[in-house]
């Protein structure tokens, strides 16, 4: 597909296409800029986003959601970068999994930055210096002071981040419905966070947190102190007015009912959870 031809063809029916795209040079610069940076796979997504902006659909609300997501992805990316690069922290058997997660979070940061820019927004930016992974709000001696010296603490913070991330994306899906490409991409990130969460929970269960299954049971925090807010509300057993426990005569326990549906968090709830980690 020739990207220049796309604009040329549209111009035949809409002579003002270049004005809509902020002028020909800017439009082509955007195309070539992105074409150089992103995989061919992402191009339809980028194009769709650009045209949506050009044709006047409101994107500021969506940019706000994506910047919120980007903040969380930065938090995670910097956390995993630090954990993976701390020698002697992660056992060799688990290291491939941790590097996978690190690479994913770094890629999510890059992807969201591109998406926000494509929508005409300005992506937020964070560095390692913006975070205190001990949850000490900058004191570097918060409740998880051993976050990079004790692997169990590292795992605990990771689990809290991943389960929070899953709930955060879930809570925002409805705000992305006006843009199918963005919604789908957000869902694709959301399920990757779900995979991460299950993996980290599985590692913790194998290391002795016996009731901490890959899925969330009730509002159980898996023995992690100070994270009740991460799991608050996960215990519900009614979905869209339908009682799941014992549904239709099936032997579905309250635990299974709560496990089988993950619950959303609002942006405010998420920001309150991550606040101690952001300086």
């Amino acid at each position, binding site marked *: 597909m020739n990207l220049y031809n796309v604009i040329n063809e549209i111009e035949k029916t809409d002579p003002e296409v270049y004005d809509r795209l902020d002028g020909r040079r800017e439009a082509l610069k955007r195309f070539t800029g992105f074409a150089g940076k992103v995989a061919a*796979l992402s191009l339809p997504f980028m194009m769709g986003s650009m045209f949506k902006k050009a044709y006047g659909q409101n994107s500021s609300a969506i940019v706000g959601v994506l910047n919120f997501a980007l903040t969380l992805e930065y938090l995670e990316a910097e956390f995993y970068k630090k954990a993976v690069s701390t020698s002697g922290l992660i056992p060799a058997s688990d290291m491939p999994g941790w590097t996978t997660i690190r690479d994913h979070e770094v890629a999510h940061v890059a992807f969201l930055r591109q998406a926000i820019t494509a929508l005409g927004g300005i992506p937020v930016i964070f560095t390692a210096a913006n975070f205190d992974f001990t949850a000490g709000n900058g004191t570097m001696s918060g409740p998880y002071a051993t976050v990079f010296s004790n692997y169990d603490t590292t795992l605990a913070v990771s689990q809290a981040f991943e389960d929070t991330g899953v709930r955060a994306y879930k809570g925002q899906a*409805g705000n992305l419905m006006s843009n199918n490409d963005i919604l789908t991409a957000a869902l694709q990130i959301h399920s990757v966070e779900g995979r991460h969460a299950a*993996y980290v929970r599985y590692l913790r269960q194998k290391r002795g947190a016996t009731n901490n299954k890959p899925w969330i049971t009730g509002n159980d925090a898996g023995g992690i102190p100070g994270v009740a807010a991460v799991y608050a509300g996960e215990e519900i057993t009614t979905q869209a007015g339908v009682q799941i426990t014992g549904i239709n005569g099936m032997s579905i326990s309250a635990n299974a009912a709560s496990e089988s549906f993950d619950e959303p968090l609002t942006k405010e709830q998420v920001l309150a959870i991550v606040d101690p980690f952001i300086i």
Partner: protein
Amino acid sequence: MEIKNQKITVTSEIEEVKQSGFSRRKFLHFSGLMGASVVVVGSMAGLPGCKKDDKDGSGVNLGSGDFGVLNYAYALEQLEAAFYTQVITSQYSGMTSSERGYLTDIRDHEIAHREFFKTALGSNAIPALEVDFSSIDFGNRNSVLSTAKAFEDLGVSAYNGAGKLLTDVNFLLVAGKIVSVEARHAALIRELITPNSFAANDIVDANALDKARTPAEVLSIAGPFIKTKINASNLPTS
């Protein structure tokens, strides 16, 4: 219309558009063809939104709109629930107590999902589907876990692809509540097969995005496991 045929038709039209570049006229031509085929299928399969059994040979019709999408999810949950029910009923040799615990949990989750959709859809729900597990050796751990992996990864990609097809925000939320649990299942099953493969690059792309598949893609993969013919031709496409 059988789903496989429909997929071939759509793919060839997309190829035509790809090969000719993206001209507006071609695009309208493409849309027109799609519209025409939907009308023909609609008239063959009855009114949109109408669930049908297989009496006239057109298959179980998932219906249209949000209910169609929910019936699509219901069909997949029926498949998964039937599979894990069989896994626990005829356990493979050497199943550890830990594996039994996980697989029993997953069975219960899938049954909960299935029954939720059945109840939520009420009179709009499709009937129970007949499954075909003849290709699975339930006595063999490898056979069971590789099938479980395929089903879970497929389920995740199905929900990811179906989100944009929903118009009611509450349905989207429920789908979101389920898909992350399916992702948790997928990750666990993958760990049972190969450590550290919970989100390997066969399923997560270079942008760290999970797969998103269209209903046509999903149903053609699930097809061999479902004896009942499924007619997805009235589902929304965007």
